């Protein structure tokens, strides 16, 4: 090679060329060795869909209250499905199961809250999308579509369930399907026209013009009942319908000019009418009673000040005071005062303690519908007694089956 001509020998070029060509061929093989290690499909969307399915179906969410349904302590945070929009930041995780011990059994209240897009932000490109941080736990902008529908019918009177959030499915996505059972809310009807006749005063001593609904925690949270079937009034709303009130009206003295000891007794202020004093309904029995107040009583029978939980009141088919206002039965402010001919319906919100715990697995709570006429008016209704909300008297709906689908892309 030494010389001054500056030309390379042909042999060198040939040899070098062969070497270089071989090198190029080999270098082209190397990426194919590594292709197996690359992310061929990008993010494993099916894994994210599976994880989301497990969180929704087998986890009660966070906060969810105590694992044992009837127990509550003052430091327990309010379950996420009862939370107000102002405290949305307290919700850490969205799960639909009733408790960790009941996988695949979902609560209808959690379902309704979860799919409520006026509460949770569902916008795809919104930086404050609530589902991403509370369900996927990722800041990556996953596209998602979550759908829940029922397979067997819902309870009588309830509409079919077909809810979804997210965006329409694209071409490729990860997917999981879960089958679930749905637990719905309970209700009870107090039919005042039943035989044998109950809830009516037959002696003066029984006249208290109040119907009590007894919610006994030790009956409802009986530990021998599996959690999937327990009536959990701490977390579930319930409805009480009082019907046929007309059968309780005070027609004990239908204008015969003789007074009846029952008709004259008024115990609102503790003053009894002297039995000798005649009191008549001016010839005609009352056609309505007046719902004066709704009281709450604790375990010992002491009245709780204010209202323990909100409720929607419907009197004879009309929402009172109006369609949007929950009743605030504040007896100190003059109370209610609705004329009831026949029916009262109370849609009571869950009894999660607003402060002091007055209802749980060891306590009972009474709701009193008070019809007491102010003294010295005689009572309009002879209603009295106590209705126990338990598994025999309340309608506990069957579990309905459903299907949940999660798509992620």
């Amino acid at each position: 090679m030494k010389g001054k001509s500056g030309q390379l020998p042909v042999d060198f070029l040939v040899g070098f060329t062969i070497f270089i060509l071989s090198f190029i061929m080999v270098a082209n093989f190397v990426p194919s060795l590594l292709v197996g290690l690359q992310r061929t499909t990008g993010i494993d969307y099916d894994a994210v869909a599976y994880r989301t399915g497990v969180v929704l179906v087998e986890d009660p969410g966070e906060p969810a209250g105590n694992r044992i349904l009837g127990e509550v302590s003052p430091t327990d945070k309010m379950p996420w499905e009862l939370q107000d929009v102002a405290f949305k930041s307290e919700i850490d995780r969205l799960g639909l199961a009733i408790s960790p011990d009941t996988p695949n059994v979902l609560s209808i209240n959690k379902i309704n809250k979860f799919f409520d897009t006026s509460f949770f932000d569902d916008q795809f490109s919104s930086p404050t999308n609530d589902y991403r941080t509370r369900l996927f736990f990722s800041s990556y902008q996953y596209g998602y579509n979550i759908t829940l529908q029922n397979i067997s019918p819902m309870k009588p009177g309830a509409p079919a369930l077909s809810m979804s959030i997210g965006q329409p499915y694209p071409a490729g996505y990860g997917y999981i399907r879960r089958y679930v059972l749905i637990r719905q809310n309970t209700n009870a009807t107090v039919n005042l026209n039943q035989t044998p006749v109950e809830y009516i005063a037959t002696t003066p001593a029984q006249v208290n013009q109040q119907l009590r609904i007894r919610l006994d925690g030790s009956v409802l949270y009986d530990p021998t009942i599996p959690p999937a079937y327990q009536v959990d009034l701490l977390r579930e709303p319930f409805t009480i319908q009082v019907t046929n009130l007309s059968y309780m009206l005070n027609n004990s003295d239908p204008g015969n000019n003789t007074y009846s000891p029952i008709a004259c007794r008024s115990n609102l202020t503790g003053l009894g009418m002297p039995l000798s004093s005649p009191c008549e309904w001016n010839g005609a029995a009352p056609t309505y009673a007046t719902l004066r107040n709704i009281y709450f009583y604790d375990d010992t029978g002491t009245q709780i000040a204010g209202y323990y939980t909100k409720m929607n009141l419907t009197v004879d088919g009309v929402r009172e005071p109006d369609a949007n206002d929950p009743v605030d039965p504040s007896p100190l402010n003059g109370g209610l005062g609705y004329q009831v001919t026949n029916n009262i319906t109370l849609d009571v919100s869950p009894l999660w303690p607003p402060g002091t715990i007055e209802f749980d697995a060891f306590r009972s709570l009474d709701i009193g519908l008070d019809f007491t006429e102010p003294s010295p008016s005689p009572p309009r209704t002879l209603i009295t007694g106590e209705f126990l909300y338990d598994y025999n008297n309340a309608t506990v709906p069957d579990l309905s089956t459903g299907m949940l689908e999660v798509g992620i892309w």
Partner: protein
Amino acid sequence: MEGVKTEAQWIVMMGFLVSLGIFFLAIIISQSTLVGQTTAEGVLEFPKNDIQDLKHDILEVEYFNRTLCTNLGGTKCGTVMGNISQEIQQISLYRKSAIASFSFPATCSGSPPQRDVYIHYNNGVTAYDEYEIRIYC
């Protein structure tokens, strides 16, 4: 060896270096086959449904023991419970390749009456023990 010319040996050296590099890559790649596992396989491997199902069934056995078994009479009930225990162990071992067993006290005690159930599960990869499942009688 004086007459042997060594000027062009650098070409072969380059060739050797490239070969060594390829071998090194091969070693790295071969390691990946040992540790690689997709998420789906990880999910399939963890016996979540088996454990949940086993726990559910054992609690049903406990309920049976407390209610219907007493109607069979003491001796018969004892035989049946022993057989049930054997069934869960044997079928689990031969069909699920897992060791599954349970135990709970014969009677309820305390106030309110209660007893604790113990569950054991081990399929060779995952072991699960739950000690105090409190059941109220």
